């Protein structure tokens, strides 16, 4: 073929001729991949991998509320806090210090009622989510290991409370690979940076392809996803040239799978560049859908946008989608006044309910696991009778699960009369993680990675699957 013919005529002709066997069109890729036929390509860390056992969930939407949501004001009704408010209780530890402390029982700011057919109690803090209790399994016996935000946030994400370790999303990506090769397998949508920073979604010692890709709501949600040259035709010229150079380079190095993987990564990047903006383009969503989430058309603000985008990512096969509502300040950390929970709840309540309803109506709740959690709860008491806020409380708090494989309309575990400690069926962060992995078909004891001479797990040496949660 004469070179001159390579750059004229239609786009299709251009690409076909320019690239020869195109690196942009899937055909070539299939061809390249076929070279590795008969064995899984060990250089493709995102290749789909079989689960350990039959999976109920194909993907996870992980809703993380930053700062510590009060369990006794939301999902854990404690009538004694209403009747005994102003009385004192004795606790053996306060703010991490051991001792005999007299604490004043503090009345919740929100009232509770039974909801749904199942009658699960929930407060007026989350009125919309309360309407979805028939789909939830509320866990009222969550336990964490640390009273500080940084460590507790790291713990709920990585299973490690002090040292940086791979995030749960990275472990899931590592265990199952990607369903959609045009999108990252683990996506985090967060308007601000949480406690402990990007360690929260880092892959740490797992291969870098398993780290969370950060989406920041706004005009430029993913870095480098927007084409910088004026037209896609110009970019195609550039990509075509690069593909040709790389093909030629590969031709004399035919056995190098890494070079093949690199060529393929440009294909995926091109795909991402097309597909990512499409994910964020909500134009085709109906008014009814937007209304369901409480999202104004054209707005990228608030948890509603995050939730709707999460559904769209779930539809496109992203394995682990995490939504973080706020950052490391101006969050649920209501030391000064519990009423600061109100606007934060308003930001997420209708959006989360909308997400659950939307997933359900599309049949997606059957294979999507929705997780709602925070790093710890808040003290049912305080050290002054007139304290308006609540302090950090990791001895017991509440989370909930919904969707694939979860027993709907149930409550698991309980705290004591005042919501101070776990009364029965404790669910430690490690148990929580083990259960999430189990629902994805992964055995938390077998999902390991050898690093620094040791086999690491998300659940360290602990964790039990909580069977009472499973449907």
């Amino acid at each position, binding site marked *: 073929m004469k070179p001159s013919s390579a750059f004229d005529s239609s786009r299709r002709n251009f690409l076909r001729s320019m690239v020869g066997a195109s690196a942009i069109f899937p055909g070539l890729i299939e061809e390249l991949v076929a070279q590795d036929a008969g064995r899984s390509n060990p250089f493709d860390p995102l290749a789909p991998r079989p689960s350990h056992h039959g999976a109920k969930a194909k993907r996870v939407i992980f809703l993380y509320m930053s700062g510590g949501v009060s369990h006794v004001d939301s999902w854990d009704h404690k009538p004694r806090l209403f009747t005994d408010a102003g009385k004192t209780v004795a606790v053996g530890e306060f703010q991490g210090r051991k001792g005999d402390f007299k604490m004043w029982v503090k009345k919740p700011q929100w009232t509770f009622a039974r909801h749904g057919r199942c009658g699960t109690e929930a407060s007026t803090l989350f009125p919309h989510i309360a309407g979805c209790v028939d789909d939830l399994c509320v866990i009222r016996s969550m336990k964490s290991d640390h009273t500080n935000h940084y460590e507790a946030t790291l713990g709920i994400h990585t299973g490690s409370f002090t040292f940086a370790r791979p995030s749960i999303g990275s472990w899931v990506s590592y265990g199952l690979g990607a369903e959609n090769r045009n999108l990252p397998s683990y996506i985090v949508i967060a308007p601000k940076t949480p406690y402990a920073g990007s360690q929260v979604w880092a892959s740490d010692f797992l291969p870098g392809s398993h780290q969370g890709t950060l989406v920041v709501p706004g005009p430029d949600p993913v870095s480098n996803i927007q084409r910088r040259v004026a037209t896609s035709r110009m970019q195609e010229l550039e990509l075509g040239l690069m593909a040709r150079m*790389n093909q030629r380079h590969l031709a004399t190095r035919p056995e190098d799978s890494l070079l093949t993987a690199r060529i393929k990564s440009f294909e995926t990047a091109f795909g991402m560049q097309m597909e990512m903006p499409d994910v964020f383009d909500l134009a085709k969503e109906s008014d009814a859908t937007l209304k369901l989430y409480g999202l104004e058309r054209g707005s990228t603000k608030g948890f509603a946008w995050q939730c709707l985008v999460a559904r769209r990512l779930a539809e496109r096969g992203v394995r682990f989608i995490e939504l973080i509502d706020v950052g490391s300040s101006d969050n649920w950390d209501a030391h000064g006044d519990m009423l600061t929970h109100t606007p934060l709840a308003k930001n997420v309540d209708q959006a989360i309910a909308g997400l659950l309803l939307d997933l359900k109506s599309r049949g997606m709740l059957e294979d999507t696991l929705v997780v709602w959690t925070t790093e710890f709860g808040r003290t049912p008491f305080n050290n002054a009778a007139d304290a308006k806020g609540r302090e950090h409380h990791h001895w017991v708090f509440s989370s909930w699960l919904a969707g694939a494989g979860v027993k709907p309309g149930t409550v698991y575990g309980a705290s004591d009369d005042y919501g101070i400690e776990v009364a029965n069926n404790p669910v430690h962060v490690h148990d929580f993680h083990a259960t999430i992995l189990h629902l994805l078909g992964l055995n938390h004891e077998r999902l390991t990675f050898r690093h620094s001479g*040791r086999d690491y797990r998300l659940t360290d040496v602990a964790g039990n699957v909580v069977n009472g949660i499973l449907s």
Partner: protein
Amino acid sequence: MLGKVRALWAVVGVAGLILFCGADHAATRSAEPELDSLASKTGTALNRTPNPDRARSLHWAFQPLQNPAPPRVTNSGWPLSGIDRFVLSKIEADGLRPAPPADKRTLLRRATFDLIGLSPTPPEVDSFISDTSSDAFARVVDRLLNSPHYGERWGRHWMDIVRYADTAGETADYPIPVAWRYRNYVIDSFNADKPYNTFLREQIAGDVMARRGASEHYAQDVTATGYLALSRRFGFDSENYHHLTIQDTIDTLGQTVLGLSLGCARCHDHKYDPVSMNDYYALYGIFESTRYAFPGSEQKQKFRALVPLLPPSESHEKWRAFDVKVGGLSQMLEKQKQPVPGAVLRSLDEIDGDFEMQAPAAGGSKGVLVPPWVCDGMISVTKEAQSPFKNLNTRGQVGVHVPSNTNSYFIGQALPSRHARDHGSLLFVNLDFRVATNDVSALGAHRFWLGKQHGLPAIEVRVSSTSVALRTGDTTAPVLLLKPNQWHNLQLTLDLQTRTFSGSGGTAEGVVSFANKPFSISSPGVIDFVAMDSIASDQKLLPGIEIDNLGIQNVPINAVSTTPPTLASSAKKIDAKAITDPPQASHENLKQDLNSLLAEGPFDLAYAVVEGTPRNARLQVRGEPDRPGVEVPRGFITALGGKPLPAGTEGSGRLELAEWLTGPDNPLTARVMVNRLWQFHFGRGLVKTPNDFGLRGQAPTHPEMLDYLAVRFVQSGWSMKAMHRLIMLSSTYQQANADGSSAATVPPRFAAGSAGPVIASGPEQNSIRQAGPEGRGLLSEWDRADLYAAFPRRRISAEEIRDAILQVSGELDVAPGHGHPFPTPIGWGYTQHGPFSAVYEHNKRSVYLMTQRIKRHPFLALFDGADPNASTAERRATTVPTQALFFLNDPFIHAQAGKFSERLRRLYHDEPGRIAAAYRLALGRFPSESEQAEAAEFLAAYRAEPTAARNGDADGAALAAYGRAIFGSSEFLHID
């Protein structure tokens, strides 16, 4: 108010920390087969509890270095060196042949990236290609080893291993503005070919060496200990987690130097390696006796205990001048009712006696005395215990409180310098104290003493609720009656020549003097320790006491006063403009002056360590510091022949540790390092677990060659440059790739006598092994590459990618980097709610980029840069679409491609010239005819795009797009 309440949550539990060690238990199961196989091979039943002697006798890595002769080989023409004979012998044993030599362009590009991390320039390529002499390549290697860029590339390898970062890593990730000094020390050391044993000794004990050695090395020796100071910090109040920081030190030291993971032994004896908890706490004591610079934390937002880069003899006067200057400014601010920053910088050469560097009680944190203080009992640091006297320290805010009715406590500290008659004759002591008199049953007396740490006091003062008395021999004579509940001052002047002392005691209203008191008869006259304790109380209850402003120095101390000293004689020497300014100077100006003064310090300081109070650690049951077990004598790892520190060792024992690590009896130090040198040249180590030479690590693929190299390393005087020459001037290093793509058509003469026909040895993988879940991997291909029957291709590292792009675009600033533009430290208030976070752009080498611990540098993270939290023994090269997006759309790429395009257009006015220049600059070769044609077609097509000329420069836009394609090309990003 909110912040105050938040601060209440400072105390942290240890429950979460136990989990870390738990990871060992997870590993137990999978490791058993290895133990079993080891046992079956040796016919020995291995006990689960490590037996150091047995493990040592079994495990290859602990055996003394051998000096094996290179084996005979069939193809005797191929080897250029002993290395080649070891390599070829294994290749031949497998019935294979080595690859042919690489072509000269490939070899030059390989060697240049390898040694300096940059592309060869076109003149360098031309010169090498045209040089047909037999030592052409040897001269290239020498040229590269002499380049200042060599240290920037190989220093970076070392920074990977020692987990260098510019921030501390605790919850708010405090910046360390002077960490760069250690970084540059590393770079300079590589450039100077500093012997590796010296390099290690300086990093472990440079501060001790500095005080003993020549003063021109003082600054670099002190700076070297940044290696230890850079240990990771944890938590909200990182001093509460200091035991974990020491664990990080020990773990990194073990991995770096010995290739052993020692950190596991914090909670239990090592499961696999012969490292016991005793070994761990023997090392722990050494580092607990060491004082680490403090980077700041959410709870204590100022850095402190930075180490002067001047010897005490030179720094002393400068500290005093600095203190007077700061004190004067502070006083003027106070007069204007403005808040004054607390003490930030204090001399480490005077005793830390105004307690400002200690952690005051605040929020949920109990005030604690931190090293170098050693204490026992209910001691706390409180604001209430601040003395009103300002004759010694003008800016104090806290003091030490000992509660009433205790009869057992101890507070002590080794003095930064040992004082004896040969060190100057006079020593001046100041102490402020207030005794509680609310409890008449507290009849005991506190003992305040100076003397030798493990000897008898030279001076002993007893403080009861009513009086101060001097103890001499068996008699106790009162010298001062105390006024109830009032602060008093005690000053002593010790004459080390005559072994007598004089002094005075009282208040600002008046003092009582005494003179000519003898030292204790049994005292050797050496003063290296000061303490306050309950030993003299005779089991009686003690009154509460508060102490502050303890000073021990070689210059006189001002008389007791509640106002700061006016300009002392020393202050006359300094520029006292700010102090003598009229008081109407605006407080904004004063603050600014004070801030810049405090930010700059009195002279250069380093983030480093100094000696603390030497003492043995107590074993911590299950790794919990509040469950102390038996005392463990400081010492070295038993299974490696380590012994406790000799009796009478002065100081922490770090110097002795450094000497032991680099001593002739320790085979690991040399083995581990030559393995790293090999690994950084070939992409894989002879031991493929470079940080783990223990029982869980992999055995070497070429054990004899490993020892051969280690012996030569030691014989060369631990010269790393000698090892580079040894390795690179081998046929092994100069081979083509397995696929033959880079083979020379005519073998260059310097690799003459090379082997015959090309062999097709099948697929060779230069990439990392990608272990799947449950450790599945492609072992066979990976293992085949272990024969080194070809040179493995590699993708260049993150730093090389960025540097090569800047180099090719013409934008690289080759000058060394220094500090980063951090915000001025005075304003720091980073918390976990608002941690420090920044990216500082520049065009210098990437080794000079600011790297944070909590938030990774975005570019370095994208291209698999080192983990700033843990020792990174090898970089993995991942291939992810976000990297491709970087090449397509990142502003950096677009900016550099634009510069590249401008450069090409400056160089040549014709298109073929520009294309050729692009290939020459970026790829070190000329384009082929078809590549020229392809480029011309591309540029024409791009220019023809209606939007290409948006800025009226279609030519430039097209050439920039062409540049981007080159930057993103596999050829640019890989070394054959």
